[in-house]
């Protein structure tokens, strides 16, 4: 275990003696690795980050960050890590440069050195033109880059990113991750990222832990997790009241599993393209009306469904995570406007 960037053993957080926000998670992150914590809202991602960044006392269990025991060296851990929170934490009434200089001072960095680091990060994050503008005039993408710069001011060994692209449009998200990837290549930084954007976790992380209801349900590289699904997934949507097609499809060539969920059948198979015409024909012969067919190459959506037994974005959950994030951003903007 020694030499790992992050190690947790049975890390647990229980609120009010009842709510098990994080229910005994154990994992290890290697130095230089990008480790993703993937799960829906309320899964326990932010609580985990809060504990690992010395902001919240675990109820039980242990964590070692960069070789330091969290319970014994929280202050030193704060010196060695960077944190990017899901909400904007920049002071809106300060310029980008001032935000960075104040952050440097908070780490006890001498003012001359702080100014030099701020200047370098402003250039690195392509904020030169906006450096002397108040942060409240920044676009969403610029604010995120400023957050990233603030999180790097102390030259951390490990960077924690808690839903860092929440509320950004796809272009802004891609831009943000390109900065993080470049940083990893140049510095060998260890990255611990929580997200509920499956595509981000897939493209960005070396390994992923899927967390649901405070428990890790699967860990592995994205390709490993997808391989565990055993091939493609064909979804057959049938009319209400149609006969059960499980028996019809189960015996077809290449099919490894069939699951029924709300009038649709998820059929795991070696090759979706080969199975579809055979399955449609078999259903027609059995008198089952097929309303729609989709073929999915294994994705993390499928992985999530496989390990938790439910869709990543539950029916009836209302707004999608993206919608919620955009709304949150809008409300924060309005509050800031009102405050001014």
């Amino acid at each position: 275990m020694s030499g790992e960037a992050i190690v947790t053993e049975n890390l647990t957080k229980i609120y009010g003696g009842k709510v098990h926000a994080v229910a005994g998670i154990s994992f290890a992150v290697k130095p230089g690795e990008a480790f993703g914590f993937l799960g829906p809202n309320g899964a326990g991602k932010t609580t985990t980050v809060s504990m690992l960044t010395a902001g919240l006392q675990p109820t039980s269990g242990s964590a070692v960050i960069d070789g330091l025991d969290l319970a014994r060296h929280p202050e030193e851990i704060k010196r060695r890590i960077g944190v990017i929170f899901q909400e904007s934490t920049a002071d809106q009434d300060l310029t980008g440069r001032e935000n960075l200089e104040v952050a440097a001072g908070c780490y006890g960095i001498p003012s001359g050195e702080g100014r030099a680091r701020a200047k370098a990060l402003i250039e690195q994050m392509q904020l030169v033109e906006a450096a002397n503008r108040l942060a409240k005039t920044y676009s969403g993408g610029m604010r995120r880059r400023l957050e990233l710069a603030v999180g790097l001011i102390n030259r951390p060994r490990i960077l924690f990113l808690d839903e860092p692209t929440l509320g950004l449009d796809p272009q802004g998200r891609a831009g943000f991750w390109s900065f993080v990837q470049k940083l990893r290549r140049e510095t060998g930084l260890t990255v611990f990222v929580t997200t509920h954007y499956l595509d981000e976790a897939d493209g960005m992380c070396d390994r992923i832990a899927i967390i649901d209801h405070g428990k890790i349900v699967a860990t592995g590289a994205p390709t490993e997790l997808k391989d565990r699904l055993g091939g493609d997934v064909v979804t057959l949507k049938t009319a209400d009241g149609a006969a059960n097609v499980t028996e019809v499809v189960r015996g077809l060539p290449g099919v490894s599993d069939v699951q029924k969920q709300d009038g649709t059948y998820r059929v795991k198979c070696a090759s979706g393209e080969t199975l579809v015409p055979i399955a449609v024909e078999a259903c027609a012969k059995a008198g089952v009306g097929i309303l729609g067919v989709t073929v999915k190459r294994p994705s993390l959506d499928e992985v999530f469904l496989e390990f938790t037994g439910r869709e990543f974005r539950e029916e009836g959950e209302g707004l999608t995570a993206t919608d919620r994030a955009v709304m949150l951003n809008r409300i924060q903007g309005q509050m800031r406007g009102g405050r001014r």
Partner: protein
Amino acid sequence: MFRELAALTRREFLRLARNPAAIFTSLLLPLLYLLLFGNGFTINPASFVGPNPGQFPTLPDALAYLFRGAPSYYSYFACGMVGFVAVTATLFAGANVIFDKLFGVFKRVRGTPAPSAAVFGSRLIASATQPILLAVFVLALAIVFAHIPGLHGLTVTASVGIVGALEVIAAIVLISLMFATLFLTFGILLEVPQTYFAAVNTINLPVLLTSDALYPWGTMPSWLQTISQYNPVSLAVNVLREVFFGSAAYPYGPGIYLAGLLGWTVVLVGLAIVLVGRALRPLA
């Protein structure tokens, strides 16, 4: 510790400088009180008979009891305004902490290893500076009003030496630090603006209304006079009035009132160190 304190204090003053509306309104309140309340609310000491008729055979006797030696209600009230602004100007110190919590700024600072003393100290310096500057503004304005025909103003009747000036400065600094500490502690311990304002309103009005900052001493019932003499606002104001108008009407010298004020400040700062230290410790 010093670098963290300096960086966070710089942040507080940058924010203050970027908010001219707040500066304007903080000046407007004492200006309106001095101009409207102080000039409108006048008491003629010559007609004051006191609790026992015949108690004050001469005007100086009545003045000594009613305004504790001040030559007019306005002069008495102008000193009280210094205590008043110490309470009202620091009231928002804690509210700013709550807003910083809501907007994530406080979370960022807490994510760094900056010690809680620097987090609290930076805000204390910025919050206490405002009432100190306002007190100077109030006293200067009140003295100027005394020279404008048709307006009442502050007339200093005693000779203020260096010791007296230092006593006045000490009283203003202590009362500002004390209330800034009190309200900042509330801001750090509480999370919601509604709860904060409910809490501070249960403190600021009783504190002001049981002090002799605005009430003429001689019109207070004796039980209120008793409470008032332990009130920190009264203690600070007493120092100013003794220095500006003489000590004849006071049982103790300014040093005793300053000691009382120092006691209040030490107790509240001590409580703040314990409570804020607990709230801002890592892994809280």
